[in-house]
């Protein structure tokens, strides 16, 4: 697949979360498993040992258990922005299930795509954005070109010619003094 076919997006903050107060974006989580099949064994273990702790820590997340006969275990996460994500957890052991549930809890619910930038700002500049007229004299608007004033070369220091001439002067003066000594 070519690179530009992969969806990409900017970083997003759902409902400016965290600017006022932080709200956990996971609103509902459903654990689906089979009561009898071996495939759901680890999920059943998770529900028995770890789920109560999760619910106590996160009273804002509604947890549902949905037994389904002879179906693989999965987790359905529903987020505040209206998105719903299904994750298959067949073959995953208890620590891994814990990690995926924690992953769902800490997410914002925005679809995971490649990121264009690692930051996002609404106000890119405080001191003003540069534009071609920023350091230009406004007197230019009223003058007719070609003008003598604005066509002149501004000399701010010594030019290369000045430096060469200086060097020449130095050399010539030293030469003359040498010849003077020789002459003596």
């Amino acid at each position: 697949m070519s690179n530009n076919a992969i969806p990409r997006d900017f970083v997003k903050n759902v409902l400016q979360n965290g600017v006022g107060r932080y709200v956990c974006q996971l609103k509902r989580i459903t654990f689906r498993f089979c009561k009898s099949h071996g495939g759901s064994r680890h999920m059943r273990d998770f529900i028995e040992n770890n789920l109560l702790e999760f619910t106590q820590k996160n009273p804002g997340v509604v947890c549902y258990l949905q037994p389904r006969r002879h179906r693989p275990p999965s987790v359905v996460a529903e987020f505040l922005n209206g998105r719903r994500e299904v994750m298959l957890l067949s073959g995953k052991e208890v620590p891994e299930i814990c990690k995926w549930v924690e992953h769902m809890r800490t997410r914002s619910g925005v679809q995971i795509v490649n990121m264009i930038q690692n930051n996002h700002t609404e106000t890119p500049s405080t001191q003003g954005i540069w534009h071609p007229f920023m350091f230009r004299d406004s007197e230019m608007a009223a003058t007719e070109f070609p003008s003598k004033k604005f066509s002149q070369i501004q000399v701010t220091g010594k030019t290369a010619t000045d430096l060469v001439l200086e060097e020449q002067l130095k050399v010539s003066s030293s030469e003359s003094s040498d010849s003077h000594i020789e002459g003596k």
Partner: protein
Amino acid sequence: MKSTHLADTKTSRYLGVAGIEEAEDFTPLSDKDLQTSVSNDINTTLEKGEMGRLFAIVYIRGMQYKVTPEDIIVVKNDFPPNVGDKIRLEKVMAVGGRDFSLFGQPLLSRSVVKVEATVVEKTLTHNRVWYVFTRKKNTKTFHLYRERQTMLVINSIQVAQLPQEEEEGGKE
């Protein structure tokens, strides 16, 4: 004092400026009077509340971010704070307002700047491909991997009054 704006000198060269400027020693620490006058100016701006929207350059895990309140930044790989935690970003390299900028050497003092942030999201990146192929050697690797990411929202940037015997470099 000559303008030290890089863009200014560059454009002016194009516009027919000739000559070699003598390099001016621009280290505010060398000039005590300049130092005090600049920090006085900044202090009066802060007192009047005319600093506008403040921005700062913060250093997190080897990356520098230019932030201003209400921004989101992404910190890559492992980052210990959990979601909902309010943290203070300690390493502030520079801070600026409408008409002043303060640069640290390399960091600004903790008593001068305070940048606060909230962790809003901890997630994984999109699948990334790690593919290596060596021809004629029957060597090929194809891996898909995902990295950890943490999103921070900047809550506030605060600048205190500068002490008169300021050690950091100040520039206006």
